[in-house]
């Protein structure tokens, strides 16, 4: 397959679980600095697409190229090291560590056994932790055990942990699930800030939220792309209204 200028180029991607095609010949391209939202009804294959990109699930056929590097053959940690970060649907943080430690663990230095044994806590690290904590509104909670954070703050912390790695492609699976209206607004602002120098791929159900953040929307249905384009265009699409948005 030829090289492209896209950050992420998915072509002809298929995964089949015992004959059921969760993702079916999917092609999708994401630009530099683009914030793309993937929507679709339950079981459309949204989370599976993220699983395929980050290596959690292996594809049956097709290709995923990140900056023209084939990801389908790499293991999970190699994909992360290439510059792809992924947030899980339920907040996935280290409950027994403090907020500071959660961020510190995610710092991309000392990632090997030996590296982690000889790792020194530098000024650059604490500066980075404080910068990211401010970004995700957790400065006051740095010394708090992560288990004690509210649900919304846990979601932010996980986003912060990804930002520590400074990924070029950030993938977020339902980042505002379970958040209050105010927290949703703050998250929308956060996402609009952080997509300035990276590409972001978001899965979301909340249409109000999608409108606030999306540059472009992809609608998935039964593992295939139903529609793609700006939010306004997609909202008026007959097929999308039929299967997902409703009349």
């Amino acid at each position, binding site marked *: 397959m030829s090289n492209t200028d896209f950050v992420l180029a998915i072509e002809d991607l298929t995964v089949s679980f015992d004959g059921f095609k969760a993702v079916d010949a999917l092609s999708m391209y994401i630009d530099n600095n683009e914030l793309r939202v993937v929507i679709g009804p339950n079981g459309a294959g949204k989370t599976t697409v993220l699983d395929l990109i980050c290596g959690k699930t292996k594809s049956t056929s097709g290709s995923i190229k990140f900056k023209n590097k084939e990801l389908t053959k790499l293991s999970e*940690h190699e994909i992360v090291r290439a510059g792809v970060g992924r947030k899980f649907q339920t907040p996935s943080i280290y409950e027994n560590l403090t907020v500071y430690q959660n961020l510190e663990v995610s710092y991309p230095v000392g990632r090997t056994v030996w590296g982690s044994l*000889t790792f020194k806590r530098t000024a650059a690290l604490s500066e980075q932790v404080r910068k990211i904590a401010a970004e995700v509104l957790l400065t006051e909670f740095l010394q708090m055990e992560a288990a004690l954070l509210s649900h919304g703050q846990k979601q932010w912390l996980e986003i912060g942990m990804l930002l520590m790695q400074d990924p070029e492609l950030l993938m977020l699976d339902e980042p505002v699930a379970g958040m209050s209206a105010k927290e949703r607004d703050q998250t929308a602002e956060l996402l609009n800030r952080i997509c300035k120098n990276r590409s972001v791929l978001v899965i979301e159900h909340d249409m109000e939220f999608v409108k606030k953040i999306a540059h472009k929307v992809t609608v998935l249905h039964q593992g295939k792309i139903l529609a793609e384009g700006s939010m306004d265009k997609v909202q008026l699409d007959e097929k999308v209204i039929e299967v997902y948005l409703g009349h």
Partner: protein
Amino acid sequence: MNVLSEKLLGGKQGAVGLAILALLLFVVFPLWLDLFRLGLLGKYVTYAFVAISLVLLWGNGGILSLGQGMFFGLGGYCMAMFLKLEASDPVSTKIQSTPGIPDFMDWNQLTAIPFFWQPFKSLPLTLLLVLLVPTTLAFIIGFAMFKRRVGGVYFAIITQAIALILSILIVGQQGYTGGVNGITDLKTMLGWDIRTDSAKYILYFTNAGLLIGCMLLARYILTSKFGMLLLAMRDKEERVRFSGYDVSNFKIFIFCVAAMISAIGGAMFTLQIGFMSPSFVGIVPSIEMVIFAAVGGRMSLIGAVYGTLLVNFGKTMFSETYPELWLFLMGGLFIAVVMFFPDGLAGVYQKYADKFNLGGLAAKYFSKFTQWVPKNSGGKL
């Protein structure tokens, strides 16, 4: 230097705890206990090596190994093989049909020392193998399991099965291993008689020193980024993997370190007690070791050592008077700890220490103590 001492000692509170333990092991117990009791204590201290290896592996890493006995046993066997070869010189074995080989080999119609016994003729090589044999086995098991992402209860069961297999293998290969009796009648190490009173004292202190050394090593690992990653992996393994770490390598490494620490305990056991047998390799000792760590506190290195000593002294006292009740008591103790004190003795201590601010008091006296240490000693105690 300050950073390093902080890392090794775990801050002032950790240093106080370690200093008290060292004081007990090096001064109080040797003065207080007679040689027989001190010998028992020395034996328990060798189990404490396994208990601290479980603090690293199980408490912090969340990897429950029910087969630590095999590493303890292998370390002990390596040491025993050296001592047995030395004890089997042609003069003292001249009544055998083949003089110069270990007695049990002679009983099993062997006429020459098997090839895998050859390296144990040399002490430096033996000391190296005490560390390397168990660690290599741990590496093989760890590589096979963790690269395939076998974990949790499956890993526990597999380690238990391997411990059982190893003990059956040792019992079955009587001519090569001494069978169910183990390797007995060990006498000297490079001509130094290990059965004399003075040797017993020297071995006891060496043992205690090695334990403190292993605890410092474990402390260093736990306070480094590696230690934080262990906790993170225990909480959310997927998140660590998707933060760019190859989780299996970290697990293999800590499993190997735990095996090596256990093996040192095993070798010291052989030296102090004078024999090694398959009864220290199989399932029962492996599970007992887990109970020691659980009672003491699986998150606390110091707690695990006290847990080991207390449970074993309890065992000695109770099993002398009520031998048939001891196993039930041990089982009940384990259930009670898991249900009511998941952090063991260390957890109970921490709770009350926080209540009465014992840690603060200790640190206060400790700082007075360090002021009292002359400045030109470079802060070394």
